[in-house]
């Protein structure tokens, strides 16, 4: 992948916002179906951040977090990573399983697979929106889940993009159930070809 700065203009950002919203709304419908309760997921923003900014957003590079990683494959390619700080991941598990707050104290294999499903659903719906908008064939890979330091999780993106000054798209997704709310972050790392497809698919 090139180290050139990608060209994120306003039009592209607004297209990405539309794709993110549609993907996240679809994911929310999927979760509500699973839960039997009305879970809403909203997307307050899409913005471009520098890779090196991400550890600060997530509480520092040594902070413990959970990452769910997916690749988009097919006509276009890209990477999607859902990252949630450890304490928020516990809250999200409680919310998804329908437990009272502070029930979950650690992430065992069951909790991890629940979070993998969150990443899987949200990532898949994002990829599906992208596919239907551009008419291209794009498929998600199975999700990989890791629990580790933020910096170490971030290395996956740094190593595969080959750069340290790269920018990624950061999408926020807030999960809400009644008056409970958990804020999460997604990073989407599309390649240039993908961005062009979005830009031209939209015009």
């Amino acid at each position, binding site marked *: 992948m090139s180290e050139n700065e990608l060209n994120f203009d306003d039009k592209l950002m607004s297209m990405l916002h539309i794709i993110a919203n549609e993907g996240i709304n679809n994911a929310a419908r999927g979760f509500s179906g699973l839960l039997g309760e009305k879970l809403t997921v909203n997307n307050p923003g899409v913005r471009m951040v520098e890779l090196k900014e991400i550890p600060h957003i997530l509480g520092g590079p040594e902070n413990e977090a959970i990452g769910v990683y997916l690749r988009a494959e097919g006509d276009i390619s890209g990477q999607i990573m859902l990252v949630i700080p450890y304490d928020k991941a516990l809250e999200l598990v409680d919310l998804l399983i329908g437990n009272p707050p502070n029930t979950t104290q650690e992430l065992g294999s069951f909790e991890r697979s629940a979070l993998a499903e969150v990443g899987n659903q949200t990532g898949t719906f994002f990829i599906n929106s992208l596919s239907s908008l551009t008419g291209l064939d794009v498929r998600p890979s199975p999700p990989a889940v890791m629990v580790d330091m933020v910096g*170490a999780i971030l*290395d996956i993106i740094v190593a595969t993009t080959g750069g340290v000054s790269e920018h990624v798209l950061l999408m926020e997704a807030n999960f809400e159930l009644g008056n409970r709310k958990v804020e999460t972050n997604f990073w989407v790392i599309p390649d240039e070809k993908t961005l062009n497809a979005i830009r031209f698919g939209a015009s």
Partner: protein
Amino acid sequence: MRDPISVGLGERVVSRDPEDVLVAYGLGSCLGIGMIDPVSRVCGLLHAVLPAKNNGTDPFNPKFVDSGINGLIEEMIKNGAMRNRLVIRMAGGANMLTAPGLSKTFDIGARNIESAHDVFQSLRMTLKSEDVGGTRGRTVRLYVGIGRMTVRVIGEKEVDL
């Protein structure tokens, strides 16, 4: 106590201030390479991201393992260290993606370790200790005053490297 000096992605820091602590936080596939000259008390830490530099880039670029090692040695010497006294320790190079089908393509960690071993061999320098590979992230610290280097993984204590 003074705040530790963070050595970020693709950076190197060399210090001779005994109060300094150099830290590379959350190394995944990246490598943290520390050099200590026990006589002049000069210490340096490199946080390298990728195995090998491209042609034409800075021969001392700290982003890459090969150029990063050369750059660190160079700066250590500039600060008064002697090459033949350098104690070298290394940690990192984990494979963070262990899902089937994904890990092979992305095992940058293993390639980083291999690159470092090749470079040290061609320079005829030996590693005093290493804690590399595996699937877990690490934080490394280098205490300049006592020339001590440590490594820590999530949920465990800081141990000497």
